[in-house]
C-alpha cells in the first residue's frame, strides 16, 4: 500500500493534517521514506510544509537560527556555520547529507541523531509551530518528550547562541570511515580562563535512548586544569546517569567502556 503526500503552505493546515492517525511529517525523508519502503503499514500519509522560512539560515551577531528544513549539506556549505562543519560532515554520505534535515535529526533515534547531540551541547531552543501558535522549547525538554508530547509537533527552526571562537568541539567515534554509524558521539562547549576550565557543557549520543547531558562530568571540570590529571575526575563520572544502547554497531558495555577515552580526547584535543 502506498503512502500519499499532502503538501501545505499554511502551518495550521499542515498541523491539522498531521493530527490524523497514520500521518507523519516529511522532512528530507531519509528515515521516513525508508519506513514506507520497509512496508510499515502504520504510516499512511506524509505531510509536508512548503514554507521558505523552513529553509532559511540566519546568522546574526551572537545568535544563529536554522530552519528545520535545512539539510546537513547546506550547513556544511554555509560560510557562517564553520564550527558546525565537523558535526554535519560526519552525518551519512554526501547523498544522505543532501536529504537529512535538522528537524528530522531531532527525531532520529540512536545510533542516528548526531546533529541533535551538537544542538544539546549548544543549549539550543527548538521552535515549534502549529495550531496553537508558536512555542519555544529548550532542546533538552524537546528530546525528552519527542516521542510523546511532541511526537506530532512541527519543528520550524532551532536557534542558539554562537559559542565563543574555538569553544565548540565535536567527536563521533565510528567503526567505518569516512561514513559510519556512531559508537559514541560527543559534543561540548568548553571554555578556559587563566589556564583553568571555566565552563563546560557536554552532550552524549548513543549513551541513552536520546542525546543526554553529562552533568556530573561538567561540574567536575570546573576550576580544573585542561590536562590528563585535571580532567581525570570528570572522566570517572562520564557514565553517570547513562544507559548505553546496544545495537548492531556496538554493545552497551563497549560504548560505556570507550566513552571516557573519547571524552578525554575531545577535552584535551588542543591542550
Amino acid at each position, binding site marked *: 500500500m*502506498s*503512502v*500519499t*503526500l499532502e*503538501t501545505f503552505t499554511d502551518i495550521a493546515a499542515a498541523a491539522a493534517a498531521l493530527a490524523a492517525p497514520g500521518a507523519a511529517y*516529511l522532512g*528530507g*525523508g*531519509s528515515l521516513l*521514506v*525508508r519506513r*514506507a*519502503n*520497509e512496508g510499515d503499514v502504520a504510516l499512511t*500519509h*506524509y505531510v*509536508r510544509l512548503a514554507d521558505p522560512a523552513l529553509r532559511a539560515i540566519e546568522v546574526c551577531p551572537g545568535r544563529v537560527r536554522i530552519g528545520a528544513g535545512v539539510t546537513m*549539506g547546506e550547513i556544511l556549505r554555509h560560510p557562517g556555520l564553520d564550527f558546525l562543519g565537523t558535526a554535519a560532515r560526519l552525518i*551519512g*554520505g*554526501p*547523498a*544522505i547529507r*543532501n*536529504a537529512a534535515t535538522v528537524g528530522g535529526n531531532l527525531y532520529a533515534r540512536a545510533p542516528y541523531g548526531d546533529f541533535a547531540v551538537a544542538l544539546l551541547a549548544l543549549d539550543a531552543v527548538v521552535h515549534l509551530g502549529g495550531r496553537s501558535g508558536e512555542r519555544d522549547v529548550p532542546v533538552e525538554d524537546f528530546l525528552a518528550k519527542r516521542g510523546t508530547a511532541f511526537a506530532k509537533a512541527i519543528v520550524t527552526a532551532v536557534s542558539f547562541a554562537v559559542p565563543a571562537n574555538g569553544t565548540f568541539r565535536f567527536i563521533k567515534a565510528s567503526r567505518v570511515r*569516512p*561514513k559510519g554509524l556512531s559508537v559514541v558521539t560527543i559534543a561540548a562547549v568548553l571554555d578556559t580562563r587563566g589556564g583553568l576550565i571555566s565552563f563546560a557543557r557536554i552532550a552524549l549520543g548513543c549513551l541513552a535512548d536520546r542525546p543526554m547531558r553529562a552533568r556530573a562530568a561538567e561540574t567536575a571540570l570546573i576550576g580544573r586544569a585542561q590536562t590528563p590529571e585535571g580532567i581525570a575526575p570528570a572522566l570517572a563520572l562520564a557514565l553517570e546517569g547513562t544507559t548505553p544502547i546496544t545495537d548492531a554497531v556496538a554493545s552497551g558495555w563497549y560504548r560505556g567502556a570507550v566513552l571516557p577515552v573519547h571524552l578525554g580526547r575531545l577535552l584535551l584535543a588542543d591542550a
Partner: protein
Amino acid sequence: MAKVAIRFLLNGSEKAEFVESGTTLLDVLREKLADFSPKGGCLQGTCGACSVLVDGEIRLACLTLAETCEGCTIETAGGLAKDGVLHPLQIAFADGFATQCGFCTGGMIVASKALLDRNPAPSREDVIEAISGNVCRCTGYEPIIGAVLAAARANSTNKA
C-alpha cells in the same frame, strides 16, 4: 489512489507523468520512464545504487519522493553519454576495470560526477569521501578511486 501530475527535466528532455502520490523518484525513473541506470539495491539509503543528481546535488532516488522534484533538473548515469560518445567517467571506469557486475556502477558514476562538477581536481581523500555512500561488492573500491582520478586527469588534459 490519487494521481498527481509531475514534470521535470530528465537528462535534458522534458518529462511529464501522472504518478501515484508518494511514489519514489526511483520508481518513476525505472517504471514510468524506463531509465534503468539507477538501481534499487537496498531501498534504505545504505547502498547508493539509486544515486541521481537533482539540480546538481546527489540524492538517493529510493528515498526521494517524485513530487518533491517538481520542476527540477534530474541527471542519471543513463544520460551521460552524448551522441554515442561516452562521458570521461564512463571511459575511465571501463578502462580501469572499475566495473564488474555493474550494479553499483550507475550510482558510483553519479556520485563521482557530483564531485568532479564541483571539484575538477580532487585528491584521493576527496574521491573516497564522495563515494562513501556507495557500496561496491565486487571491485574492492581501489579501481573505482583510480578511475575517478583518471577521469579528472583526462578532463584537465582535454581542457589544457
